[in-house]
Every structure is written in structure tokens, then in C-alpha cells.
């Protein structure tokens, strides 16, 4: 049995799909080719100055009301002179800044700026005075010594962030946030810049390699499931106790009521 011929003189039915795909690739590729330039703007001096200018404009529009027109600070926000590009990358990149309201705790919120915009503001702040810059990517590749990182984490970080990175309470309503599923660069940045009440862990306290070890440990925690089952938030005996009373004992009471009920 021969297949009936599909040729009707018209174009192949799938031609339209193919054209669409080609068109998409063409426009996307063109965009990528041109925009790639912006991401690596610091390679040319002219592009670098354009980045700083763009950053200044963004800063004036979104940050100066609290941080001052020259980044000198005000009643509502501290000075950003000398905080470095790394601080900006952290604060803006995690959504902490712009802050919703002045206060002792900047909470993580949806990120409001694109990475290029963040880079621009970081470049402007970095131009105000020397400060911590972005580190060499080898120091946050999460390929470090997980065991050493775990030990350093327990000594330096667990008392605020909890041994499993579940977060913890600080004084007067502040808290150390949980550390799940963070970008390695942001973990590095937090250690270096000491955001808000977090202490500063300079390179003499924790070397760049040691910081990478800590990042590797956090990455290990993210990638490996809780071995015994659901982790109940990794909060320890409190959640375990609540669980056994509500589900364990509660469940067994339900069983006991069934057991002693009259059968129909």
C-alpha cells in the first residue's frame, strides 16, 4: 500500500514552523551579540565610564533618598562610601536593597534590578572610594574542602545561622537568615562585607580558600537530601517535639478512639 502523496503544490506544512524557529534564533542571536557587550563593559574604558554613569543615574533614582546624593549617608541610611562593588552586588542581588522601610533588619525580597543594572550601581559605588571588589571566581566555585568548610562553619557561622543553615534569632527582633539555595557569590560577599550586624570575615580571618570551603559545605547541604526523611525545617528538638505530640500522640489517640468505639 503506497502512501498518498502529500505534495499539493503548496509549501511543506512544517515550513512555517521552520521559518519561525530560524527567525527566533536570528533575533535572539542578534540581541545576544549586541548585549554581550554590555555585560563585559569594564573591558573598555569608554564602556566602563558609561557603566559608572548608568550606575549613578540608577543610584540617584533608587538609593539616594536614604544613602545621600553622593553616597554619604543620611538619617535613613548609612554611607556607602568605601563599601565596595561587592557590597552592592550582595545587597541588591539578594533583593535586600532597596529596603522596604528603614530598620535594623533588611529582609530578603524579590530582586528589583537586573544583573547589568546591579553591576552598574556597583561600579558607581566602587568609584567613590576603594572597597571590596568581586572576587576571583575560583574562590566561589564550591569545589573546595567540604569537611574543612563544615568545621569552619560550625565555629564561625552556626551560632547565628544554625548548624544546618536554618537561620536563627538575634537581639531586638533581628535575625540571621537561612542559608538555603544561595548563590555562591552572595555567600562570599556576605562573609567579606559583613552586612548589617553580621561580623566582617576578612581574608586574614577566613582566607579566600577557606571561604570557598564554607561555600562548598553549604552547596553540599543543598545538594544532598536529609537522610532520614523530611527534615521538619532542621530546627531540632522543638519541631520534633511538636510533631510527636500532634501527629504521633494525636494519631494514636485517633486509633484508640477507633479501637474502643462500638462496632456497628
Amino acid at each position: 500500500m503506497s502512501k498518498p502523496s502529500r505534495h499539493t503544490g503548496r509549501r511543506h506544512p512544517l515550513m512555517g514552523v521552520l521559518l519561525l524557529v530560524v527567525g527566533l534564533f536570528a533575533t535572539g542571536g542578534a540581541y545576544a551579540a549586541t548585549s554581550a557587550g554590555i555585560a563585559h563593559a569594564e573591558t573598555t574604558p569608554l564602556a566602563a565610564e558609561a557603566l559608572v554613569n548608568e550606575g549613578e543615574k540608577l543610584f540617584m533614582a533608587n538609593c539616594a533618598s536614604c544613602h545621600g546624593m553622593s553616597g554619604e549617608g543620611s538619617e535613613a541610611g548609612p554611607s556607602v562610601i568605601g563599601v565596595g562593588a561587592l557590597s552592592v552586588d550582595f545587597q541588591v542581588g539578594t533583593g535586600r536593597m532597596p529596603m522596604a522601610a528603614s530598620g535594623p533588619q533588611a529582609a530578603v525580597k524579590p530582586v528589583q534590578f537586573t544583573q547589568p543594572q546591579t553591576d552598574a550601581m556597583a561600579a558607581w559605588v566602587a568609584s567613590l572610594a576603594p572597597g571590596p571588589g568581586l572576587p576571583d571566581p575560583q574562590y566561589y566555585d564550591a569545589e573546595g574542602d567540604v569537611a574543612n568548610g563544615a568545621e569552619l562553619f560550625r565555629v564561625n557561622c552556626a551560632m547565628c545561622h544554625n548548624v544546618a543553615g536554618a537561620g536563627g534569632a538575634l537581639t531586638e527582633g533581628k535575625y540571621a537568615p537561612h542559608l538555603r539555595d544561595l548563590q555562591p557569590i552572595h555567600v562570599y560577599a556576605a562573609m567579606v562585607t559583613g552586612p548589617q550586624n553580621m561580623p566582617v570575615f576578612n581574608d586574614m580571618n577566613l582566607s579566600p580558600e577557606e571561604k570557598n570551603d564554607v561555600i562548598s559545605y553549604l552547596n553540599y547541604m543543598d545538594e544532598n537530601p536529609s537522610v532520614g526523611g523530611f527534615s521538619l525545617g532542621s530546627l531540632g528538638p522543638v519541631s520534633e517535639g511538636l510533631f510527636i505530640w500532634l501527629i504521633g500522640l494525636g494519631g494514636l489517640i485517633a486509633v484508640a478512639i477507633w479501637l474502643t468505639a462500638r462496632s456497628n
Partner: protein
Amino acid sequence: MTNTLDNTATEPGRGMRFTGWAANYVDERTSASTAVKTLGRKIFPDHWSFMLGEVALYSFVVLLISGTFLTFFYDPSMTEVEYDGSYLPLKGIEMSVAYHTALDISFDVRGGLLMRQVHHWSALLFVAAIGLHMLRVFFTGAFRKPRELNWIVGFLLFVLAMALGFTGYSLPDDLLSGNGLRIIDGMIKAFPVVGVWMSYLFFGDEFPGVDVIQRLYVLHIMLLPAILIATLAIHMVLLIVNKHTQFAGPGRTNDNVVGSPVLPVFAAKAGGFFFLVFGVIMLIASLFTINPIWNYGPYDPSPVSAGTQPDWYIGFADGALRLIPPGWEFVAFGYTWPMNILVPTVVLIVLLVSVALYPFFEAWVTGDKREHHIADRPRNAPTRTGIGAAGVTFYAVLWAAASSDLIATHFGLSIEGVITTLQVLFFVSPVAAYIITKRTCLALQRKDREIALHGYESGRIVRLPGGEYIEVHEQLSDYERWKLLDYTEYQPLTVRPNNQGKITVGTRLRASMSRWFFEDRVEPIGAKELEDSRH
């Protein structure tokens, strides 16, 4: 010698014949038939709240089974070794042998983690069930004569269970339980005169020493379980001798027990319940992580985790420590009195002793020396129930204080605010709970009275010929009504002089207690009143 147990009319099958032979063999050597006769058809009343003690008993059996498995793999030595197991974040880390073997059980023994989780979940359930069981006994007045001694025995079981739990969770020598031991050490050192010496001898050196885990192990697998099993045996024997209490109901009197016989119904239900308790624990242990010791790392006096709490049943002690305001310490004649430790310790001891001695207090107030085998409905003992509610609330405030930092982070509060609020609630909430509970009991009693006399609203509205609408009240059956009627009323004590013509302080005190207990009360309905209401 004939086999006196051959009793079937038809020719018995092989199985039956073997059973008959075996039973005879045993009986001729142990008088087993006497035991069967005494216990075989013993009656046990059926109420779900009577099964809480069973939950405790069965979780203890689960603890014994899972614990035995763990002892085959665990080593309590505090000798330092380098980790060479399979958990990557601890590779090469210095730790005690105890911690190392606990990790091996979790990561390198098949079923090891399961048994660890079964054991720990079961321990949490054990103490919880004991607590709820104690509350049931309290609120139903089942501690009254002749069961006062069994109440004390049960109280001892409660303390032993907590001790077993504490010694047990300290065995892995991890950071969390190690900091718990550090806290206990600090509390021991605070004791006047002998504190430092007690700590030194207990730990076998300065803290942490190299002996304490082994010593806790001996307590945990040998001494405390042996004492607990012996105490449990006394508890069960007294239960059998006194027989179980039962709730008021048709056909139930203070002089009988109504329910199912041990063989076959109660044995099937109780035996089945054991499998259900074990099964529920196993289900939880398969699906929910408990005490992930690998996250905490080995104990070291320098690191600590945010969210450091003991297991739930020690929470009330930890919370008591957290509620003390700053600066409670004084020096007298050169000696230091750390009141910030001593005051919570005394408060906790007073709380526990009050729980243990309550039956004797209530017996003194009522002067009732009869045996009581009918369990009270809590509403029919309003003051006792109010006191119980106040006690539970007091305990709950202390328990909540132990998780003050987690309450703060989860509800967006400050730790200072949470603790200050709990400090106020410490004083205010037990009183409030007492008042609300007692008034609720009295109101419920009045409602019961109404229903017993006039029936309950049926929801049917009837229009009378004269145009009135009434809601028809359904009368209760005699059986239902009896449950509402059968309780004892107590009157406040009338103060009378004794044989020497004096009114002693003791009598005055007893009279005022008695007034507090029984002045506000709802009288049970008498036969005459019931008759009258029918017309």
C-alpha cells in the same frame, strides 16, 4: 495419670492434642493454670483515654527492642579518633569514638539509621504518653484511694523516663547534646558547698573529661532500665490488684467492673494496639528525620548552634532558666549564691513534688476514706480540674520559654519581647486558666443538670393549637441520664472543736481549703427532684 486437659467431645486434631500436652507439661511444673484462672477472664473497661498508659508501655517495649539493636554497634568511649566513615563533611575530623559509632550506625549500617530514628521517636512518644496518661488519671480522680501509692509509683516512672531520655540523647556526644551536658554541668556547679565537687566527680575531671559518656551509657542501658522495669512491674501489679477504674454508666457501680475479658477480646485489642503503636512509630521513623547528629558535628566547647534546645520533655527546665531576669546572684561571707540557677531549680522541684503529693492533699481536704473506683468526669470536680488546668498552663509557659528564640524568628518578634511576655504569663496565666476552667466546669454541670431534668433540644418546632411555638425537648433514656447523675457531691467542712474543746490551726486550714474546693458546686439531681420534673 490422665491428661486432665483433654476435654473436647469430638476427636481432637493434632494441633489441639499438642496444645493440650504442652499446657499440661507446663502446668505440672509451674501451676500455670492458677494464673490462667485468676487472670484469664479479668474484666477491663473500655475507654480510649484508658489506653494512654498502653501507648507508654508499648513505646517502652519498642525502646527496648530498638535499643538492643543499637547496643550492638555503639561504643561509648570518649577516645579521640579521626573520622573515616562515609559522610563527606566530617571526613578527617577529630571526634570521640562514641560520636564515630553513632555516625557509623547512621551511614554505614543498613537499617541503622532506621533503628536510631525508631528509638528516638519512640522515646519522645514514651514521655509524651506518660504525661498525657498522668493528666488523664489526674482529671478523672483515679489517684484516689486505693490508688495513691500507684500514683507515686507512676510519678517515679515519669521521672525515670525523663532521666532515660536525657542520658540517651547525650550518648552520641554531638554538639547539641554536649551543650546540654555543659548546661547541666553549670547547674550542678551552682549548688552551694558541694556543687564543684559533684561536677568534678560526675564528669571524672574538669568538664568535659573522658568518662562521662561511658557513665551515662551504664545508666542508660543498665541501671535506669532495670529500675524502670521493676517499678513498672509494681505499677502493673497494683493495677491488677486494684482493678482499673471505670466511668459512671448504666450497670457500673463502685463495686464492679464492666467491660471485656482479657481472653480473648482485651488481649486481641491490647495486642493489636501494640502492633499499631509500633507501626505508627515505624512509619514516622521511615519518613521523618530526627536528631541529625551529622549536622551538629562532634562536641566541642567552642561552637554552638542557633536554636539549642533539649528534647521536649526537658524543655520546661530549660525554659525556667530562660525566664530569670539579669543579675540574680549574691555573695554572702565570701560564698557565691547563684540564685539565677537555684531559684528555677527550687521552682521545678516544688512543681514536681506538688504533683507527687496531690492525692494526699485532696484526701486531707475531703476527708473521704472510702475506695473510689468510678472515674470522675472532670467537670464534676471543678476545683480539682481548675487546679490541673493551672498546673498544665504553668508547665506550658515554662515549656514555651525554651523555644523563645524560635518563637521570635517564626512570628517576627523580638526575643526580649517573647521572654518578657512569658515572664508576665508565668504569674498571670495559671490563675486565669484556673478561673476560666472552674467556671466552665460549673457551667457544664448546670447544663448537664438541665438536660437530665428537661431533656435536650431536638430541633423540632411544634405549633400548639393555641398558636404557640415550642421546641420539643427529647428526654434522655434512663441509661444516658444515669451518666449525668452519678457523681459525688462534697460539702465544705464545718469547723468543730476537737476532744479538748480546741479548734486547731490544722482544722481551720482544712476548713478553708474545703471551702475553696466545694463552696461553689452544683448538686446532683435526687430521685425526688427527678420525679417532680416529670410533672
